[in-house]
């Protein structure tokens, strides 16, 4: 059993890594009061940009991730201009970004379908990787997985301990008050949204240059939406977001190992599980209105335009 479990749990970490990046990015954006439903589109744009850059330059996954982050940031800029500068409905603008991202990535991706990349070899962390079982699961991963932990720690630290985090939350709670005190609400929201874009772009580039590593049309397969749902599940807390991401990573990995584990459910129905589980998880969290009210950034989803 343990022989089965180690690859499953190790694989879970890799499968969850795109969700960790994209979820953390969305969490930061939502903390500032902006809900960006364009995560799926930004992931796809990041995926094709990273893949195209890595194959064209031969720069490997590292170059791909940087290109993905840049592309994700640019995509988020489109959303930010619409929803922050022009006051468009955030839900509509995010949806537009997702539809645009699906189209753009498919359009560019058509020329890249026959390419493949070598992916990344795992890095063994000295000493830690020698710990029985746990070492093979946690510390025998590619470096991007470790990077995701660093980002998660950084986001948690900034939100909890720094002035920047305080400012972000103040803008998310009451943009009117923050504006009245003299804080640049729109600039702070731009920053949060662009950070979200960079993270989603990295998530996409990880999928296409490390995890798969191929370009497949619509390869994000709803991960962007699951990331948005995870932020609700996490009640806007980075630690819980990681937990949720690994839970969902586990579900996607499980279908690959289902046969080995003797689970006799048709593969199509196994594939539906993460999506059905997302619905279930949303229901379980959202039914506790008080819990949501306590944690929800009060201005989430509402446009704010400094008047006059």
């Amino acid at each position, binding site marked *: 059993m343990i022989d089965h479990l180690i690859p499953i749990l190790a694989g879970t970490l890799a499968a969850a890594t795109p969700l960790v990046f994209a979820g953390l990015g969305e969490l930061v954006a939502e903390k500032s009061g902006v809900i960006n*439903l364009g995560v799926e*589109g930004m992931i796809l744009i990041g995926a094709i940009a990273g893949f195209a850059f890595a194959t064209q330059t031969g720069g490997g996954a590292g170059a791909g991730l940087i290109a993905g982050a840049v592309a994700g940031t640019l995509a988020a800029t*489109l959303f930010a*201009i*619409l929803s922050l*500068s*022009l*006051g*468009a*409905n*955030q*839900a*509509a*603008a995010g*949806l*537009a*970004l997702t*539809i*645009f991202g*699906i*189209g*753009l990535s*498919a*359009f560019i*991706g*058509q020329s890249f379908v026959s390419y493949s990349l070598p992916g990344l070899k795992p890095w063994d962390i000295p000493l830690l990787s020698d710990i029985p079982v746990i070492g093979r699961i946690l510390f025998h991963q590619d470096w991007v997985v470790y990077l995701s932990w660093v980002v998660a720690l950084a986001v948690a630290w900034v939100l909890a301990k720094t002035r920047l985090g305080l400012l972000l939350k103040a803008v998310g709670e009451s*943009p*009117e008050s923050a504006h*009245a005190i003299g804080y640049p609400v*729109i600039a702070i929201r731009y920053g949060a949204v662009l950070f979200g874009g960079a993270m989603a772009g990295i998530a996409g580039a990880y999928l296409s240059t490390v995890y798969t590593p191929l370009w497949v*049309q619509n390869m994000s*397969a*709803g991960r962007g*939406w*699951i990331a*948005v*749902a995870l932020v*609700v599940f996490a009640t806007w807390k980075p630690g819980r977001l990681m937990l949720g991401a690994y839970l969902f990573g586990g579900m996607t990995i499980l279908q690959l190992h289902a046969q080995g584990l003797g689970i006799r459910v*048709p593969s*199509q*129905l196994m*594939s*539906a599980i993460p*999506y*059905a589980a*997302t*619905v279930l998880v*949303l*229901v379980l969290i*959202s*039914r506790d209105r008080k819990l*949501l009210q306590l944690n929800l950034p009060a201005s989430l*989803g*509402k*446009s*704010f*335009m*400094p*008047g*006059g």
Partner: protein
Amino acid sequence: MHLLEPRANPSVIMRWASPALAVLLTLFVGSLLFIALKKDPLEAFRVFFIDPLNSAYGWSELLLKASPLILIAQGLAIGFKARIYNIGAEGQLIMGAIFGGGVALLFEGTGSSFALPAMVLAGALGGALWGALPALLKTRFNAEETLTTLMLAYVASFLLSWLVSGPWKDPGGMNFPQTVMFAATSQFSMLADGLRLNTSVFITAAAVAAFYLFTKKSLLAYAITVGGEAPAAARYAGFSSKRTVWFALTISGLTAGLAGIAEVAGPIGQLNLNISPGYGYAAIIVAWIGRLHPVGIVGAGLLMALLYLGGEQAQLALQLPAAITGLFQGMLLFFLLGCDAFIDYRLRRRKRRTVAATKPAVPVQEAA
């Protein structure tokens, strides 16, 4: 960064000029794209927008593609007015196809003339149920309908994939994931020889009329609009937001389900994995371009159908990826939302008026 200032009153002209502007901007950026791809833009536009319509067959295809888009968008518009975002119409379309297609398989070999009416009812029911489920989750458990409708769309597509590659697979179908072809009695009849346009287009026509009357005459439609624009006022007037959620999601599921059965009992004639080229998602754009207005949606649906046809033509004649349709759809929605800003705002004038300068910051309700 603060380029805009609020208008005293929303601009009625901009409200209807905005979609036209968005189309022009999309065409402009589209020509830049064609130039970048070393295609003659005039030639490309001819292929995209003129060639598909230079035959009776072309017009029939246009209506065939516009029909599901218009039908779905009519239902979605009701919800969008109330700020209830059903973005999983694709899933409700698939469930309509599954329910209706299942009935077609039940009637297999009977030759009964009840087959088609039963399929249409089942399709409407399947879509409505798949729309009602998120309504239940929203009203009972407070779960966001944006996420649940979309997640359920994925579930529906996997369910379809399982059915056509498992229990409902055509045993004589060379192992392709598809059902048997439906009998003639289980399909809408063609309107003319050689054209694929079929009688299901009358369902769409009836729906347009019904939604037009509904939005003009019904108190419920008024309550929905008020509930979206001024939730507090709606509550004082005693309009229930729960009822709005149930109604909006069920009715949009129903129209999507009808579109689904119209596809599988129409041009497709069976259940398989390619029953929709994303009509459920494109219909979101159609609803917005059509200003959530039943007649506006007809125009927007025809435009979007032309984009689909143009994309197919461009693939054949210009060797451009068919995904260019999706790219244009996304651009169109972007530009529409950008232009829509000028309904409620105008460019800040260079000289600041003193009154304006002393105005405090105003929180702005979400612009539609």
